């Protein structure tokens, strides 16, 4: 059974159909890439899955349950964690406390003291070893992205949604980032990643879904889907709907 299934999901803003009858499924353990030109509705799709936006119609089935009308917090508790396209850390809390918040309220909730004990191991994993006491707001942009991922992992999610998490990394950081995502997937976490860095998509994703104007226009292995004529047209922009 698929871990997550989107069925005919739609959401409009005024006259704009940001997500328009979108359907796809993710199997457990898969790393799915969600790609498409800017404004094609990828982030809106993530916001619909996590309950940040409410769908006008359609269903989101996660682990056998329709969560399309659920509140963000109950979706998070059901086992979906996310990072944000524009980094969001809790700036005046310490780095370790940021991670602890993920553990305290996530899919496997634990007591605050226990969460603080678990934080250092997670920080080590994402490359912020020994910096737990510093305020999160002082971190560089890239390190804040790392912290967001640690917070998401602390929740022990079954499904992890990454919204352009690799954007803005230099080549070395990109290598490390890809290795990190691969190791998370190896732990059995299913991942949906919205991404523009095609080399990373090719390296990580067995399957991708390509979106344009709110709709799925292609699906398959990265190589097959990206060479689809509809995809090429969408990226070149002569298919403006």
């Amino acid at each position, binding site marked *: 059974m698929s871990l997550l299934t989107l069925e005919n999901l739609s959401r409009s803003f005024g006259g704009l159909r940001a997500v328009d009858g979108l359907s796809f499924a993710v199997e457990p353990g898969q790393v799915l890439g969600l790609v498409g030109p800017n404004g094609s509705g990828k982030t809106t799709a993530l916001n619909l899955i996590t309950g940040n936006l409410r769908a006008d119609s359609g269903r989101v089935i996660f682990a056998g349950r329709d969560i399309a009308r659920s509140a963000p917090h109950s979706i998070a508790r059901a086992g979906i964690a996310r990072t944000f396209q524009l980094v969001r850390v809790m700036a005046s*809390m310490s780095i370790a406390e940021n991670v602890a918040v993920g553990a305290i309220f996530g899919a496997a909730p634990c007591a605050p003291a226990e969460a603080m004990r678990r934080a250092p191991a997670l920080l080590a994993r994402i490359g912020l070893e020994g910096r737990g006491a510093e305020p999160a707001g002082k971190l560089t942009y890239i390190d804040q992205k790392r912290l967001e991922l640690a917070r998401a992992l602390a929740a022990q999610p079954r499904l992890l949604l990454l919204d352009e998490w690799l954007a803005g990394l230099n080549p070395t950081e990109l290598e490390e980032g890809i290795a990190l995502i691969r190791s998370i997937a190896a732990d059995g976490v299913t991942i949906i990643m919205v991404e523009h860095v095609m080399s990373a998509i090719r390296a990580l994703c067995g399957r991708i879904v390509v979106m344009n104007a709110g709709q799925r226009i292609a699906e398959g292995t990265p190589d097959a889907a990206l060479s689809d004529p509809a995809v090429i047209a969408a990226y070149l922009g002569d298919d403006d709907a």
Partner: protein
Amino acid sequence: MNSPIFLAAVAAIAGAFALVQPHLGPFWQSLLINILMYTALATAWALFSGPTRYVSLATAAFFGLGAYTMAFLGEAMPLPMVYLSAAVIGAVVAAIVGLSTLRLSGVYFVIFTFGLAELIRQLVTWAEAKFGGTVGRFVFVPVSPTDIYFMLIAACVAVFALGWWVQRSRLGWALRAIGEDETVARHAGIDVTRAKVLLFSLSASVMSVVGCIMAPRWTYIDATIAFNPIISFQVLIMALLGGAARLYGPVLGVVPLAILFELLQANFPNHFSILLGAVFLAVVYLVPRGVAGLLEKRR
């Protein structure tokens, strides 16, 4: 401030208040009762408004509900039950207000709380006239000023213990996260509305119990006395001056302002409201650092 020192300090100060009581004349006892009452109220106020940055203007509403609980039930049931009832009534009314406004932007909450004391005052006045045929009621319960003094010490200790416990609990963590970034908090699995409503109810039930404790001081209460908006106002200034971000912040504002207001009330009874407003404006404009804890991030 770390926990053992904080708890020891609370216990020591409470002990000192208890020890000096036999040596107090009526004037000093009355001043200290005022300070204790405002300490409990302002700390309870900051308990909710500090971390969430929602400005509540409804202190008088909950205080008055507590006072009226004593007036209605004081002779009908044992005193401990009366205080318990006050706590429950305050919490229930706060939950209703919270559930209808705390899902929305902060300004709706402010507006609702701004009118709440007036709403309840009018409802009580209406109900008393319609069903009781009275304007006010006498509070005849065997509670002396000294009893009130000691109960207020207990209330202060309780509110500090509550605040200390909340800070370390999941609820406290949830509220800190909400204060930092509500969207992140939501997606981390925090039921934001539930956390806010819970804490608002806790804070309101403390205020109601304080009102219930204070009611016998007046012997006669009517809705205008019990739901006096000045109470909301004073609590707000004290907490803002002291700083609402820390548990011990509000006390720092309570002590100087309670004494100042006592002096103003005694010397300029007719101009009290003007002076109060002026002091408040001075706090807002000249001590933004005191206000800063609350306003740092906005709500």
